[in-house]
């Protein structure tokens, strides 16, 4: 299996552990992630709210690169997933907008053709690889490790655009956590937004929302697992700036999966997670 790998700004610029663990777990599972030359920021969910045509054109430009490669796109950021999925779906389904966007793209010699799909890494694992194969490949199960999963909003919503799982009661990430031998634990308010997108408007609110969630997770689980760099940064940084940090390790899902597939703590970039996550090693079997 081969995919065009759209990493997104945040992981590219500062969360190398997320990107490296994604690449290494993919390889272990027989998936080839191919870099997208010339790709840029997805356009962002911010831009969507400011100018529809520009947002669609920015996302479509990246999709055009994958179309030339002849590969479906795999993403690891929820924001990128939403921006690219929305553009891909809108331009496939709305011929008038597609014409308008292609007029913009013609300016830079590109054309959206509508020949590829966009999937979050988590969705690709579930739909294209399958839980059975993942479970069969896990040889170092993390028995006894309790995990608080945080999906993040844009993996699931808007649900009429994403068409993935149930936005009010999702199970995919939980199933993928359970597949590693760890146990995904239900906790109150687990679907609440990290509020990372307003970090630059009301930082105090983002930190307090983040702390509330990690404190809840601490009551029920050993670590928190995320699938979006923005959410990850919120839950990590809210603890780093707090005088009363609950010290809950935040781990990218591919790091957890990678451990269960026998990859090293170091090669999964876990030492660069700023809240010490070495407690997970106590649960490693095999």
């Amino acid at each position, binding site marked *: 299996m081969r995919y065009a790998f759209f*990493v997104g*700004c*945040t992981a*590219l*610029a*500062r969360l*190398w*552990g997320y*990107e*490296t663990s994604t*690449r290494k777990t993919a390889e272990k599972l027989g998936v080839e992630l191919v*870099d*997208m*030359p*010339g*790709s*840029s*920021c997805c*356009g*962002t*969910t*911010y*831009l*969507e*709210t*400011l*100018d*529809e*045509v*520009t947002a669609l*054109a*920015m996302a479509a*430009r990246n999709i055009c690169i994958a179309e030339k490669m002849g590969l479906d796109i795999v993403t690891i950021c929820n924001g990128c997933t939403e921006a690219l999925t929305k553009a891909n779906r809108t331009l496939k389904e709305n011929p008038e907008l597609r014409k308008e966007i292609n007029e*913009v*793209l013609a*300016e*830079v010699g*590109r054309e959206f053709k509508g020949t590829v799909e966009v999937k979050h890494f988590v969705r690709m694992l579930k739909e294209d690889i399958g839980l059975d194969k993942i479970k069969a490949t896990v040889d170092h199960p993390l028995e006894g490790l309790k995990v608080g999963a945080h999906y993040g*909003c*844009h993996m699931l*919503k*808007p*649900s009429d655009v994403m068409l993935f799982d149930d*936005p*009010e009661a999702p199970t995919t990430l939980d199933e993928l956590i359970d597949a590693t031998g760890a146990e995904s634990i239900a906790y109150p308010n687990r679907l*609440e*937004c990290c*509020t*990372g*997108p*307003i970090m*630059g*408007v*009301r930082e105090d*609110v983002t930190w*307090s*929302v983040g702390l509330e969630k990690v404190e809840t997770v601490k009551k029920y689980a050993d670590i928190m697992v995320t699938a979006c760099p923005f959410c990850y940064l919120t839950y990590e940084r809210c603890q780093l700036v707090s005088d009363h940090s609950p010290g809950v390790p935040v781990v990218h899902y591919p790091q957890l999966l990678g451990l269960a597939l026998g990859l090293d703590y170091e*090669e999964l*970039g876990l030492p*660069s997670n700023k809240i010490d996550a070495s407690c997970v090693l106590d649960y490693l079997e095999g």
Partner: protein
Amino acid sequence: MIEMTKKEIRIAEADSDFRRKVLETPGAENLMLCYQCGTCTADCPVAMRIEEFRPRQIARLVAYGQKERLLEGDTLWLCTGCYTCYERCPEQVKVSEIISALRKIALKEGVLHPTFRAIMKSIAEMGYIYEIDDFQNEMREDEDLPPAPEPDVDEIEAIMRKTGFLDLVEGS
């Protein structure tokens, strides 16, 4: 006293052209179906923590054409875009989309939150929301990662100019 006056909706000051513009924005068409049940505010992660941010009030103020009140301060820029109100509104009013429509109108009037302006300028100038330079690429190499893709910034600027977006950002 001033606070009380400010909280009145002044029908005489209603800007019906403003309401029309919001209703014409894709996604915001259902505004007039709002019966003020308050599901949006009750479930909003920001409204729970910030008293001034009330999605239900935003819907009502648009219906009454209260443009000035909506465009002042940080109100419009406090929506995280989590789509909780979008998913749960019994009338599919989708207040998140109303807020997006308001941001688009605000930008056309030269109003843009400084954080948003900075992010948009970064994308236009660097192709990313953050600078990714030699330092980042050296760190990436230490983690066994290839260099970050180099976006064609001329292409990105050309797209943003063609749509007129960059001119609006620069004029804000």
